[in-house]
């Protein structure tokens, strides 16, 4: 596709519910990243995929957070039993090679609000 796409663009949920956020990377990009942006924490890394594997999950804040990637393309970030502190904008990025020295292109984000 022309760019990284994410869905939904906005999600409002009640505390305790599970949510799934989707990312479609740029076609042909092998590496995919999830970040989140919140008022208190700024922009922070969550997880990185190379192909379907996740070599770096160090940024996931708790075991309520998980992510998968299938077919080397689409990725889903799942948050179980959402809490109010999970409210943030979740951003996805992709790069062609994922070798570190590579430009990351970001999607428009999903704004998650937990009531």
């Amino acid at each position, binding site marked *: 596709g022309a760019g990284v796409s994410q869905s939904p663009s906005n999600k409002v949920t009640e505390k305790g519910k599970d949510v799934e956020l989707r990312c479609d990377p740029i076609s042909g990009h092998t590496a995919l*990243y999830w970040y989140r942006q919140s008022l208190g924490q*700024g922009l922070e*890394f969550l997880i990185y995929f190379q192909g379907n594997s996740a070599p770096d999950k160090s940024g996931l804040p708790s075991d309520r957070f998980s992510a998968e990637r299938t077919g080397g393309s689409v990725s889903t970030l799942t948050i179980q039993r959402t809490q109010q502190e999970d409210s943030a*904008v979740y951003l996805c990025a992709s790069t062609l090679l994922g070798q*570190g*020295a590579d430009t*990351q292109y970001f999607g428009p984000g999903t704004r998650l609000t937990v009531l």
Partner: protein
Amino acid sequence: GIQVEQSPPDLILQEGANSTLRCNFSDSVNNLQWFHQNPWGQLINLFYIPSGTKQNGRLSATTVATERYSLLYISSSQTTDSGVYFCAVGENFGNEKLTFGTGTRLTIIP
């Protein structure tokens, strides 16, 4: 982990003015990117510049890797330049994540 500091935190300028935004980082990097976050929250790539100098229209950037800083220059500012500018760095080869600075909020007044 690596620390990234941006200055100034806020900048208010008249249309037509020039500005310089600074990014300091605490360790060697293999990746450095400048982004503009527009009012709708989209992160727009400006430069991939782990070292050297690049120019794109009214914008240019310089990274002096040995001294661990990067500068973003905006000339002849326009109101559409308003937003938050982020510097983000990648530490080492094989360490894929970007660490972001806290950003510079630029407001251009007509």
